[in-house]
């Protein structure tokens, strides 16, 4: 029935549709806000549907520009790997646009907001669909620019965060450019397909340099250990309805880059040539180690945050550390775990940031200690965020556990005794800070001013419910996502995972995880518990402030001293405070101000006194003549 869409299933169609859509939405906004929002939703959802339909059959499009000096052609291709990431990105961006339409605040900035959102979606799809290095770099730069402009829409508070984000990601993009040009000059071709066959032969030293240059660029985007400095301020200061895309979809391009270049182009055998450690490449091991270290550090920071968006920002960095750990461990289980966790992270982080947006919209403040007791007032938001937090913490009832399980299997199978404990501590820490959100925002005492809080408009809750439903579905049948990932792995040349709908068979001396059995046991146990619950007398519901306070009556006007959420993990913070004094931020600032001093020195060269200038010219001439004389 949808055959008529077939011609549209080509990558250049989707990207150009989005770019045109961006312009149309921007100018439609000048006319009427309703038109602009509908345009934005139509374009994004339609393209997301197209991406979904396109499936993972290989599609290649060539376009040779007429008079380019370097004589090459642009290539756009859909393959298993790019389709998997495109699915993730389009799903998150489309539904986030629907989500932000629900807020309905109509300011001049909204035209720019929706236009840039579509542009960003197009750029991200461009990066993922690009078949050659130059289009990859061009779309990468467009994506950085679009996300930077979107961050600046948040106004004064986002100024420092946006500038830092732009500087560090441009530096990363430039290191990618250098890496790419090194490959281009060595092999003469830009297209990934051409490179894949040739790259294997290169000498390990060359491979190391190029991969590390590219790696720096992708590590910046994936907020890996030394480069995550830009992430917390950027994620938390960006506009509330943009952060889901920022941390949900945008951050996935780092891992995409790593997977593409490490396994898609260089390939496992060539990586192995660079030295192996217990069966996996040294390069991969370093990335895995960096990933797990990032996970722990970011978790310790996240536990101490009171601002909900900053907390979620640190949590995204730590979860991305997990993804990088998975991709770093090159075995089929490791990469499957990494990719599956990237998908899970895209879903539950988007839901969490959407929920955070709703909370900030209802309570008007970003501090967790100002919220409280919204669980009963906003049940849908509470339920969706609860499921997302279950996935974040990796509770077996949701999809989140599957990816974490695969990561641990991979780490333990290869006896990585440094990565596995770090990962586990980060996961327990994840459970701590995710519960902090629940406790501060949804449980505890409901303050007087939030009495009127209720669930937001359906436009907001539908995307959140969709994502929550997806997480539960993955909890029951992890086979669906793992099936796609298996096809991606076979495309990348890694031995694919043997997957059935409910469980994964890893091999002889591995544990097993049958999601179906776990879920059935949980439901049966639930029935038993409910039965036990309903045997005894029905419980009588009492008011919220009717709690045991040593007989004291909580005076009504003293609103929130009953709500324990300020300094929730004070003892922990006190222990970790000496080690967590933002050393990395201070290092970056020192580097920045150091350079300012150097440039202050340089500025002094231009003294403004013409004698000096003449003196410079004469010295230059004298040196030149001597050099000329001596040389020739």
């Amino acid at each position, binding site marked *: 029935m949808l055959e008529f869409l077939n011609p549209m299933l080509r990558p250049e169609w989707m990207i150009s549709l989005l770019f045109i859509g961006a312009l149309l939405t921007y100018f439609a906004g000048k006319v009427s806000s309703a038109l602009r929002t509908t345009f934005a939703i139509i374009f994004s959802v339609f393209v997301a549907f197209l991406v979904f339909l396109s499936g993972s059959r290989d599609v290649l499009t060539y376009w040779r520009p007429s008079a380019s000096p370097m004589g090459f052609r642009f290539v756009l291709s859909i393959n298993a790997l790019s389709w998997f990431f495109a699915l993730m990105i389009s799903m998150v961006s489309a539904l986030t646009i629907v989500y932000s339409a629900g807020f309905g605040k109509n300011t001049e900035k909204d035209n720019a907001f929706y236009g840039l959102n579509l542009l960003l979606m197009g750029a991200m799809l461009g990066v993922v669909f690009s078949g050659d290095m130059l289009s990859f770099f061009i779309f990468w730069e467009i994506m950085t620019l679009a996300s930077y402009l979107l961050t600046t829409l948040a106004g004064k508070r986002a100024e420092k965060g946006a500038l830092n984000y732009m500087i560090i990601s441009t530096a990363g993009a430039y290191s990618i450019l250098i890496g790419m040009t090194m490959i281009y000059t060595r092999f003469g071709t830009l297209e990934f397909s051409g490179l894949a066959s040739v790259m294997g032969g290169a000498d390990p030293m060359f491979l190391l340099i190029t991969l590390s240059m590219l790696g720096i660029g992708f590590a910046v985007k994936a907020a890996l250990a030394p480069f995550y400095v830009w992430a917390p301020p950027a994620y938390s200061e960006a506009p509330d309805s943009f952060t889901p895309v920022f941390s949900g979809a945008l951050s996935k391009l780092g891992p995409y880059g790593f997977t593409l270049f490490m396994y898609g182009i260089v390939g496992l055998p060539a990586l192995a040539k660079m030295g192996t450690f217990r069966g996996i490449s040294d390069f991969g091991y370093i990335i895995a180690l960096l990933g797990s270290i990032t996970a722990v550090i970011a978790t310790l920071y996240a536990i101490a945050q009171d601002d909900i968006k900053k907390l979620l920002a640190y949590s995204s960095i730590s979860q991305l550390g997990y993804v990088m750990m998975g991709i770093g461990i090159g075995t089929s289980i490791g990469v499957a775990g990494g990719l599956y966790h990237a998908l899970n992270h895209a879903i539950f982080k988007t839901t969490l940031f959407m929920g955070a947006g709703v909370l900030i919209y209802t309570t008007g403040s970003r501090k967790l200690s100002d919220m409280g007791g919204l669980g009963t007032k906003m049940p849908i938001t509470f339920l969706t965020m609860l499921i997302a937090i279950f996935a974040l913490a990796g509770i077996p009832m949701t999809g989140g556990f599957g990816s974490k*399980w695969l990561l641990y299997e991979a780490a333990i199978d290869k006896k990585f005794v440094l990565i596995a404990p770090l990962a586990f501590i980060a996961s327990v820490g994840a459970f701590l800070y995710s519960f902090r959100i629940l406790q501060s925002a949804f449980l505890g005492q409901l303050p007087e001013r939030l009495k009127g809080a209720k669930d937001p408009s359906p436009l907001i809750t539908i995307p959140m419910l969709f994502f929550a439903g997806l997480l539960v579905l993955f909890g029951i049948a992890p086979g669906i996502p793992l099936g796609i990932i298996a096809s991606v792995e076979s495309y990348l040349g890694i031995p694919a995972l043997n997957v059935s709908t409910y469980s994964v068979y890893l091999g002889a001396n591995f544990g097993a*995880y049958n999601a179906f059995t776990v879920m059935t046991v949980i439901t049966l146990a639930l029935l038993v518990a409910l039965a036990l619950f309903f045997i005894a007398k029905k419980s009588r*519901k009492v008011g919220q402030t009717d709690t045991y306070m040593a007989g004291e009556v909580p005076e009504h006007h003293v609103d929130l001293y009953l709500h324990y959420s300020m300094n929730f993990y004070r003892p922990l913070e006190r222990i970790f405070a000496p080690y967590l004094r933002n050393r990395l931020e201070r290092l970056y600032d020192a580097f920045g101000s150091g350079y300012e001093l150097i440039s202050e020195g340089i500025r002094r060269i231009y003294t403004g006194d013409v004698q000096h200038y003449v003196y410079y010219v004469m010295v230059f001439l004298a040196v030149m003549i001597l050099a000329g004389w001596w040389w020739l």
Partner: protein
Amino acid sequence: MIAEILVLIFMPVFVSFMGLLFMGIQRKITARVQNRIGPPFYQQFIDVMKLFSKRENIGHNWVFDIGPIFAIVGMLTTMLFIPMGGFRLLSMDGDLIVVMYLLVISGLGMALGAGASGNPNAGIGVMRGLTLMMAYEMPFVISVLAVMVYYHTTSLAEIVGMQSGMWALIILPLSALVADMALQAQFGKKPFDQPIAPAEVATGPIVEYGGKYLGMLMVAHSIGMFVEAGLFIDIFLGGGLLFHQPGIIWQVFNFLFWVLLVFALYTLAVLVNAIMPRYRIDQAFVFYWKWPTIIAIIGLAYALGVSVW
């Protein structure tokens, strides 16, 4: 197949019954330590009966009710995935990592319910519980990792199978020692019972739970006792399988020996509980992340060395 299902049904009933019995006996032992007569050994059953027969149960909201329900669900599910007393139950479908994450469900449910009660004491209690969990997870994970690395598998059933010759306790004594220290906090016994400290935070999370809620929590705790002890036994004490000859009699002996082991472990924890005062929460955290972690790392290094070499 029918035998399997029967075992699956009766095991939880047996475990909760024995759990309550052991808790009663432990109260008697603690009393004897304090040189007093102490309650009858079946006191725990009376308490549970009284709690369930309360004529009025006071609850706050539906999230408050979920607390105890989740606690029981978490413990029941975890229990079924741990090989107990010679029976493999469902441990073929979920390995050690699944079990470690399933353990978290009951803690999470309790935290949710306590938070929903709106009492600040509950909030503080939950914070202490989570901090304590993070504290003892570090050494516990490293010691369990040592075993997994040594036997090169994550499946509990296989670990139990491989220990038929020699218990892991003998091969990796340090890891076993650290795991036992962590067990003290998992049971929630004295030096590490900050979350439910009666004097400081009025029994922490369960301050608003009375009547049937408290009864359900007590049942959950009894199952929990068997889960945590059972986990330790499976990893370090060969799943309590002393006699390996075939035949029903040996299986019965094994089962009884396993029950004895659980009782022994729990008594050890209770004896420590009877005499030790309570740490402050940050002292407990620093305690767990200092010496037990160092010992666990040494054990891990040893296990790695032995397994790789």
